[in-house]
């Protein structure tokens, strides 16, 4: 007989669940097998240890149970006295929690919209136009301070509201001008191409800004040079 099977029988025998016909077989095996005898002995010592070390409750357990029970009974009596409070409690609490959650969420969104710096993108009325797919530019020639290239007066929230008011399917230029601090998460473009186009346009705008700054510096240098000249300027066209 295999020891594995006998060890299962030992466990059953400890609980008086071993079939009567197996009892003599078990005893015979235990008489012959020292390993199974030790196994049985160790299981029984383990059982004795478990029983000997049963944890003791604290002496004030009954007192604490009494207090808790009184408390629970008082609550139950109150619920029975004012059943409408109990029935209203569930949905009122739910409503209060939903209200708090909604308020916190809205506040967070507003704070995000107001505090996030407005992402500057060219608008249709910003003084110059960027034709999609074209590199040619038509810039206003001014020697004084240039007109604001970007509309910094508009806040993201206004822009977002304006964007929300627009019907779906407007052109790319309009959408670009409406992009706000909400970033691409607010973008309702139907596909990724629009976003890529916007990023391309933003890079173009940045390049144009740099070129414009260089030109303005050159113009200022030329004006300064012109003012420093003492000789009268000859108008060649008139002289000819």
């Amino acid at each position, binding site marked *: 007989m295999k020891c594995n099977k006998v060890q299962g029988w030992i466990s059953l025998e400890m609980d008086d669940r071993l079939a009567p016909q197996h009892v003599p077989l078990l005893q015979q095996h235990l008489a012959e097998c020292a390993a199974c005898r030790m196994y049985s002995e160790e299981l029984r010592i383990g*059982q004795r240890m478990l029983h000997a*070390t049963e944890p003791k409750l604290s002496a004030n*357990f009954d007192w604490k149970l009494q207090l808790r029970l009184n408390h629970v009974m008082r609550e139950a009596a109150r619920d029975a006295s004012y059943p409408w409070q109990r029935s209203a409690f569930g949905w009122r609490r739910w409503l209060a929690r939903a209200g708090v959650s909604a308020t916190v969420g809205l506040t967070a969104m507003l704070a995000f919209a107001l505090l996030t710096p407005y992402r500057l993108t060219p608008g249709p009325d910003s003084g110059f136009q960027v034709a999609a797919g074209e590199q040619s530019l038509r810039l206003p020639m001014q020697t004084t301070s240039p007109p604001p290239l970007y509309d910094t007066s508009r806040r993201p929230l206004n822009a977002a509201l304006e964007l929300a008011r627009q019907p779906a399917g407007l052109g790319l230029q309009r959408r670009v001008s409406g992009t706000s601090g909400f970033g691409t998460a607010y973008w309702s473009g139907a596909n990724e191409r629009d976003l890529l186009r916007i990023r391309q346009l933003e890079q173009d705008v940045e390049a144009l800004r740099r070129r414009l700054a260089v030109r303005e510096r050159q113009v200022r240098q030329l004006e300064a040079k012109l003012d420093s000249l003492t000789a009268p300027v000859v108008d060649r066209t008139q002289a000819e």
Partner: protein
Amino acid sequence: MNPSPNDYEAGQRNGSGSLRDMRDEDLIVLVQRGQRRAFDEVVARYKGRLYSFVLRMVKDPSLAEELTQETLIRVYLHADKYREIARFSTWVFTIATNLVRNRMRQQSRMPRLLVLNPAPEDDEIPLDPPDLQADPSRDLEGEELGRLINEATAKIPERYRVPFLLREVDQLSYEEIQQVTGLKLGTVRSRINRARTRFRQNIKPLLRNETLLAELERIEARAQAEED
């Protein structure tokens, strides 16, 4: 035998002697009728067994005490739901097992937080009164062995530990364990066997420790003397 309506009054007159002689199933009928003294007898019968089971499941004495109280409170509040289709002990340990499992599940989901200044849950409940009956020297005697046994028990996987403790600590029969856990009878049998094997492996180092074995003998002798 169902208790007569006057059993409670009879119990009061006779110093609750009749309550002590009643079966659990009859006691709970009295509890269903609102007899608080019958519930006290239920508490006296089950608190130690419940605490022993719960402590070896959750390992934390204060949590074990809380869950034991919670079990007994639920027994009182939902006594009217008990039907004598199963033994009362099965019903009580089903409640305790469910509570322990829920708590262990909650603890496994919750991140471990360090509470620096925990607020009292209910300011109506005063602080624990000092435990005047506690005997520190007596606690120390079996403390080391108890700690080692608890550690060895805790190492048994939970699915084996529940039927094992219900059998070894609470002396429930295989059929009762089957009802409490919802397992098949064969599964109960095999899980108890596996748990015993694991427990034996875990206590193997203790079995070679002569001091601990001598301590075991002392504890058993003292328990026997107390019974006599």
